[in-house]
């Protein structure tokens, strides 16, 4: 499909129309030039779909979801992506939603996302996910790019830090990393540092790519040729930096405010999840732990590898309670090393429990994002999953590198 085509997204839901969120779903689809369609089905199939598909769900609308998913897989519905959604807190729907996502992923190459909504779900909440879904459908040729060519730059305007890189012919020749305070100013500062280190001028840059929370604002300011959400950019950047562009991989990106788990095949994301219940499963919790322990965030990792997580009971399910258990354990006499180890383990445990269930973990497992530099985090993840965790060089610059790489697709000649 061409970049300008409208992406047809099959809505496989059990009643978003009744939940007061349908307008938001339509709105987010429109904003990424996509159209939600209901796959047509044979009504008579509803009588037997429970047995045919295998889940004899009590709710008829869940059976409708199964019939629609099957219509997508069997090609009866001509769609470019699938959005599976159901009510938050419905156990039966959660079972069906999860199995349908696996089913579509197994039997088709159509990108699929799933989400459980409440009446408070807004278009903004779904923006990154829907943007990633349409990008995978629309820009497969761009995502297939394996080499950075020419002189390009990438800026990742994240919630906590802003990163920039300048790249030339597959090499990072300059980088900048600053805390995000004001979006444009921080991006300018990071970009200037990268340019200075590279020894080039901004006007020499052939194409700029932006990503992260501030991507639109920064992209407009620097006239970026590529403004792209973090899921596709980071998965691309991860397999590029880890030199694992072919075959399967799993990318885990622990960011400052949220985290992402992405299942990748040949550098193109398949299934992915975003978020976490609370910032307790993000780099923010580690930042607060470091502050409470009176160490710099860069020293937390070294502290954590010396500690024993088992000695401290900590649960960062909620950042407030996480900090509370941190304070309690210190008050009981726990060592800073044990507390640092427990904090790292707790973040990783949250990611395991909340997100890794939603993607198929396939090796190599590539850990990226600022938190990957905290040595205790990859160690805890490796211990929990019992597999080797790969942290590529410059893993904290992942978004910026991915942007610079993809932006080079816009360099002519």
């Amino acid at each position, binding site marked *: 499909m061409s970049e300008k085509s409208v992406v047809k997204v099959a809505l496989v839901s059990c009643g978003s129309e009744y939940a007061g969120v349908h307008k938001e779903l339509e709105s987010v689809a429109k904003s990424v030039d996509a159209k939600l369609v209901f796959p047509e089905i044979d009504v008579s199939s509803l009588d037997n779909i429970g047995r045919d598909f295998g*889940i*004899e769900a009590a709710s008829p609308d869940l059976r409708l979801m199964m019939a629609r998913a099957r219509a997508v897989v069997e090609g009866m519905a001509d769609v470019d992506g699938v959005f599976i959604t159901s009510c*938050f807190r419905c156990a039966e729907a959660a*079972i069906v939603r999860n199995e349908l996502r696996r089913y579509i992923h197994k039997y088709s190459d159509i990108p699929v996302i799933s989400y459980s909504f409440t009446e408070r779900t807004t278009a903004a909440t779904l923006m990154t996910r829907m943007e990633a879904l349409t990008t995978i459908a629309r820009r497969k040729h761009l995502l297939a790019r394996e080499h950075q060519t020419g002189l390009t730059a990438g800026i990742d305007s994240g919630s906590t830090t802003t990163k920039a890189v300048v790249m030339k012919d597959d090499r990072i020749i300059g980088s900048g990393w600053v805390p995000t305070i004001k979006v444009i100013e921080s991006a300018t500062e990071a970009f200037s540092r990268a340019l200075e280190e590279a020894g080039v001028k901004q006007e020499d840059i052939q194409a700029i790519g932006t990503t992260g929370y501030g991507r639109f604002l920064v992209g407009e300011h620097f006239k970026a040729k590529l403004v792209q959400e973090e899921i596709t950019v980071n998965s691309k950047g991860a397999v590029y930096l880890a030199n694992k562009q072919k075959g399967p991989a799993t990318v885990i990106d622990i960011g400052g405010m949220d985290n992402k788990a992405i299942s990748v095949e040949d550098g193109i994301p398949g299934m992915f999840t975003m978020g976490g219940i609370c910032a307790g499963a993000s780099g923010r919790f580690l930042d607060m732990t470091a502050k409470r322990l009176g160490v710099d965030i860069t020293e937390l990792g070294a502290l954590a590898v010396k500690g024993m997580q088992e000695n401290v009971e900590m649960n960062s399910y909620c950042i407030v309670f996480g900090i509370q258990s941190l304070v309690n354990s210190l008050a009981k006499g726990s060592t800073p090393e044990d507390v640092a180890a427990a904090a790292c383990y707790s973040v990783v445990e949250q990611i395991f429990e909340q997100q890794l269930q939603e993607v198929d973990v396939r090796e190599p497992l590539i850990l990226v994002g600022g938190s990957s530099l905290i040595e205790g985090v990859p160690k805890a993840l490796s211990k929990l999953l019992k597999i080797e965790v790969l942290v590529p060089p410059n893993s904290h610059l992942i978004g910026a590198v991915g942007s610079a790489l993809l932006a080079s697709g816009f360099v002519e000649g």
Partner: protein
Amino acid sequence: MVKVIIYPTNSLILSDLVERFGHQPIAMMEKIKEKISTVSVDSPPLNITAEDPKMGLKYAAVEVPAGVRGRMAIVGPMIDDAQAGIIVNESPMAFGCMGCARTNELTKYLIRQRDMPVLEVDYPRGDNEEEAKEFVYKIAEFLKSLPKDEEEGKA
């Protein structure tokens, strides 16, 4: 002899039938026995701890209630271990019951997804003796059709 998972997973009658035909039933009773006789775990009455629902995450997402995931932590590995399956639909509670409709749905689905011989039969209704005989006959024929030893199973 093959390992046969039964549904309902705690049906004594089904378990007995599988055994009578020379196969190994994979049933809930055995797993619960293992749980409750595990020394040093003190989480009565079933010795299911907070770790079990976490293990159940392999089979059901975090949004699925802990009770379903706790059950799946036991049933999921049983399904993974099975070489054949028998599902009895619409059975009365006394025949066997997991006590949770969501777990039932997921269990049956996961058994059906396995690439192995699976027999599905409806429980005989009413007092019709012929239907009951037919029910047992179908199960018996299925069990007889399964390989008797490992080598035959591989072939």
